[in-house]
């Protein structure tokens, strides 16, 4: 059983007993450097989606922490994730974003790797190496584990990390809300072509905490709610379904994953949505009716923003998007944002969603823009010597968390906060940081996987 009573981070810099977190964890460069080792080499990280690499030879250059990696499908159809760095002298073997190739050749000295990572081409292998180089030992560095979960591709550098579905634990059913088709089936999704990538001047944990369940910052989005970019012409999304629901936050202390959810009463009528387009409205109405029929009681649950530890953010419903917050130093984050649609949806639906998604999210998104302004200046105001002496407050809702939560026959797993009357809680944020502190203190997965 892991010891989590006190460490430098657990109940130290991250003081969950008092509900306070030191600003140092956001702005301190030494802590950042430790974090690259303690968190990003050991956790499961989102790489991409299967629909991005359908054919042998297809590749997509992604990222794990600070590092560039290549997601690639080999000639036999198997997926790999490699460090994008030649084993010889480090040069990136792929400076393109995506494509199809039979080999990855390093421009520097010409070493060449097959799509399964094996070193196949070494210039002057006979003349200069006298055939003594053991090519089998010099293939591209491959991740320790890789898994495809309902189309999403994940990888970790740590062979000791639990398998991905175990890493997810009971959060799985909530992650599914981002990965299943709108009608609740396993019909495939696809990534709309083009992953948005942009730089923001803040530590990656600001957006990570935001998506973990910052239920308090709606005031920042007042302007977008006023102008109305939602798919029915008002607000930023359709709200009837939420208005009919009980609003909960769910977090999993062992795992560090958390999300918001909305739970409808049994027998609720399907709320109208996407009213700006009759064709799209029909599509979603039919999808929702089928989803509820398939899922029975669990069809009452819909998702809102969530976070898979450490840095994968989920938007399951309006919009549907997955983001990764790549660390780029303590003071900068590179955001990558994927937008998802049902692969089999008619063009009119995909076109409508595509336009809605990019006016909601991303640097041109009227909602996300205000989040980024807050993260930017929260970070910059926290860098000073005096500022760093004053921890952030994370007390909201402490003591109101519930386990074994049941709502009209639905047993919700994990730690639950009922926000319907409370309006807001910081439990999900506390959960995220508690797990982060555990990763920072723990020497290995032996201490981190204490559910075993």
């Amino acid at each position: 059983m892991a010891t989590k009573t006190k460490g430098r981070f657990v109940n130290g810099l991250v003081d969950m007993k008092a509900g306070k977190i030191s600003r140092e964890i956001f702005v301190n460069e030494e802590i950042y450097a430790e974090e690259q080792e303690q968190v990003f080499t050991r956790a499961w990280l989102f790489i991409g989606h299967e629909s991005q690499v359908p054919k042998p030879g297809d590749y997509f250059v992604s990222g794990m922490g600070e590092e560039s990696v290549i997601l690639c499908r080999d000639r036999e159809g198997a997926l790999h994730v490699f460090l994008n760095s030649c084993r010889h002298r480090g040069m990136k073997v792929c400076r393109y974003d995506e494509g199809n190739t039979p080999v990855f050749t390093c421009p520097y000295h010409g070493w060449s790797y097959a799509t399964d990572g094996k070193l196949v081409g070494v210039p002057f292998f006979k003349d200069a190496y006298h055939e003594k180089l053991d090519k089998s030992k010099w293939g591209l560095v491959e991740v320790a584990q890789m898994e495809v979960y309902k189309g999403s591709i994940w990888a970790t550098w740590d062979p000791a990390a639990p398998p991905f579905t175990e890493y997810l634990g009971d959060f799985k059913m909530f992650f599914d809300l981002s990965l299943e088709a709108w009608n609740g089936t396993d019909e495939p999704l696809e990534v709309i072509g083009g992953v948005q990538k942009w730089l923001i001047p803040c530590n990656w944990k600001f957006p990570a905490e935001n998506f973990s369940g910052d239920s308090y910052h709606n005031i920042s989005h007042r302007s977008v709610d006023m102008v109305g970019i939602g798919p029915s012409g008002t607000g930023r999304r359709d709200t009837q379904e939420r208005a009919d629901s009980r609003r909960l936050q769910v977090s999993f202390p062992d795992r560090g994953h958390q999300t918001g959810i909305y739970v409808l009463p049994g027998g609720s009528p399907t709320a109208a949505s996407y009213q700006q387009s009759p064709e799209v409205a029909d599509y979603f109405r039919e999808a929702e009716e089928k989803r509820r029929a398939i899922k029975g009681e669990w069809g009452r649950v819909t998702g809102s923003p969530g976070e898979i530890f450490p840095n994968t953010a989920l938007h399951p419903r309006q919009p549907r998007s997955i983001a990764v917050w790549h660390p780029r130093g303590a003071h900068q984050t590179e955001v990558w944002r994927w937008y998802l649609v049902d692969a089999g949806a008619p063009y009119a639906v995909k076109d409508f969603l595509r336009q809605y998604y990019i006016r909601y999210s991303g640097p041109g998104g009227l909602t996300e823009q205000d989040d980024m302004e807050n993260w930017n200046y929260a970070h910059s105001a926290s860098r000073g010597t005096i500022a760093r002496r004053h921890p952030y407050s994370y007390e909201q809702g402490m003591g109101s968390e519930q386990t074994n939560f049941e709502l009209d026959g639905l047993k919700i797993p994990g730690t639950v906060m009922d926000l319907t009357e409370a309006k807001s809680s910081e439990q999900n944020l506390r959960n995220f940081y508690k797990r982060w502190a555990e990763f920072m203190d723990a020497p290995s997965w032996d201490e981190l996987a204490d559910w075993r």
Partner: protein
Amino acid sequence: MAEVVNVRLLKAGDKLQVSHGATVVVVSNPLDGVWIFARYLASPEDPSLEGTEDMIFAQDIIEVLEISGD
């Protein structure tokens, strides 16, 4: 010595003079400008290579002997 070949432009069927006196025919081109996949047609220094396929490095290409017609 022949002029420097842009390996990117070689096509299947092109015949090349390569190092160690060998002659190869291009089988396919990975379009990396560094390697081509080729089959040995003649290899006087090491006849065991004849008929085998291998990757040929750009700097080992001495001369383009024949561009494939089609």
